[in-house]
């Protein structure tokens, strides 16, 4: 169902892109299309917005025609691993303000090593502390690249 999944993915991505195309066209129509000094800010977006609408409609309709295709099941465990990592990453970014980069990054690394790769907690803790300290020393101290600081001051 690789094909069926892809088909359904094509359908939904087509719908999302059609919505984006419609939004672009609606916005572009509010801006000047052609003025006395030449094309306005709405000119180029209107054209690619229309193209996006047309192409996404083509994707949707060609997908609906192939709807009976069969294939393999989507591998949700694999997708789940990737999305879990993404959520952990987004959470660590959200924690930059209160906790700072160093602590948030250590937590992210710990999560990846201990939870995603199921390594012993000692190894996870060691990797987390070493990599967070490495980032702090290399970027903040040695290269002078500022890292988001939290209530601890780093």
């Amino acid at each position, binding site marked *: 169902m690789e094909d069926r999944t892809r088909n359904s993915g094509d359908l939904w*991505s087509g719908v999302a892109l059609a919505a984006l195309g419609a939004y672009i066209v609606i916005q572009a129509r509010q801006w*000047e299309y052609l003025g006395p000094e030449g094309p306005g800010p709405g*000119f180029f*977006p209107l054209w690619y917005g229309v193209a996006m609408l047309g192409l996404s409609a083509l994707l949707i309709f060609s997908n609906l025609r192939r709807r009976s295709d069969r294939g393999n099941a989507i591998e949700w465990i694999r997708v789940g691993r990737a999305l879990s*990592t993404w959520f952990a990453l987004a959470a660590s*970014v959200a924690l930059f303000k209160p906790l700072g980069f160093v602590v948030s990054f250590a937590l*992210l690394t710990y999560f*990846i090593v201990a939870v995603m*790769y199921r390594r012993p907690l000692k190894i996870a803790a060691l990797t987390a502390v070493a990599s967070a300290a490495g980032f702090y020393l290399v970027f903040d101290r040695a290269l002078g690249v500022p890292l988001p600081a939290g209530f601890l001051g780093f």
Partner: protein
Amino acid sequence: MEIIAGLLNGFAVALEPANLFWCFVGVLLGTVVGILPGLGPPATIAMLLPLTFNMNPAGAIIMLAGIYYGAKYGGSTTSILMNVPGESASVVTCLDGYQMARKGRAGAALGIAAIASFVAGTVGVLGLMLVAPPIAKFALSFSSPEYFALMSLGLALVVLLAGRSIVKALLAALVGLWIASVGTDLFSGTSRFTFGHMELLSGIDFVVVAIGVFALAEVLANMEAREETQLLPVPKGLKNLLPTMQDLKDCRFAFLNGSVIGFLVGALPGGGSTIASFLSYGLEKAVSPRREQFGTGVIEGVAAPEGANNSETGGALVPLLTLGIPGSGTTAILLAALVLWGFKPGPLFIPEHPALFWGLVASMYIGNVMLLILNLPLVPLFAQVLRTPVYALYPLILGVSMVGVYSVSGSMFDLALLMVFGLLGYLMRKLDYPAAPLILGLALGAGMERALRQSLMMSEGSLAILVSRPISAVMLSLAVLVLLIPMFGKLNAWRLRALEQG
């Protein structure tokens, strides 16, 4: 004479201690990146781009270019030792390289890959040096309509060869154009697609999108699985890595084939090193007296694609530096780097910044020598990089990505956008939307809109200007023809075959 004088000046720039150092850092990083499966040159260059903002531009471009061509040397190591390509252009090297390693000839395979890379890489730079200045001179006659047509043709070629579905590749390019429109319109001062966010008034930073779509998405895709691959033993000692005289004799045509095909395909937008390596492998097999043995460990089957893969770099830099048109995701990032440092790649780039152009060319000669040295005696050492546990590697890539984005603007908003583009890049991979057209659309979007609007100002609103000038008419016709290729059965079958192989 002009070329020799330029090259001598280039060597004076490239041999400055700081630039030599950055060249070494670039090729070293490139080799490591090429060896590591799952971390490609575009992701690495995007990640490191923000760190180059405070560097001398000559040193910075020398380093980034070093990563670009260095990765191509390193890519063969995993293909030969693990049957896992370090990057897509090394896929074809697996066919004969891994078989040679299984037969106990890993040393010869690694050695010929390094030698072919050196020979063809050097020929590619020679081609860049000879071809770029006349093309730049010719392009001086271009005006806005020609630029719009040229960018349309470049985008069309990338769309053609980016993925199986032209519709999806076109949609990806249109999303890139849309992202490029976000912010204040420089002609009228109108704010577009900002969703009421002040932070979007100055547009979306290219670096944020590139790092998200390439680096973050690559890590997320790699996080899906945890397979460990067996590494075949690397022969120790330089003697065991050197091919025999018979091997070198067998590879004479492969060196030439790889050099020429790699350069020509590289100069074509959308071509890329993957297609170059497959074309040269195909040609080598077609003309070889022992073509039936290809795939069982034939040394020319390693030399030809590895050569093409490296010669492609010189070709790819021709349209980038002389016309300002990148032909792939990696060169689009290099274009963004040049623009961010305050340069405008195009016909005036070489006359206005000769030290930068010739310094880069000279550094590539030096870099190729460095790579030959690094990749022959030090291959066993580099192979140890493969023992780096992925659970430690991926957090590092994520960390460098976040630090890179934060260092550009110091903005938490940009970090949030990075998350959005990381997820977008991952979803695009899952749904078979190619990333290269999006990045190219983003890199060319502002220039395309400017060229189109200036053209219409010149013609007082008439689109006929785009087809009434011969050069732009030819290029636009070619762009349309390129996009119509999927409608022709045989041509589309060829396109799909090239993509499947790649």
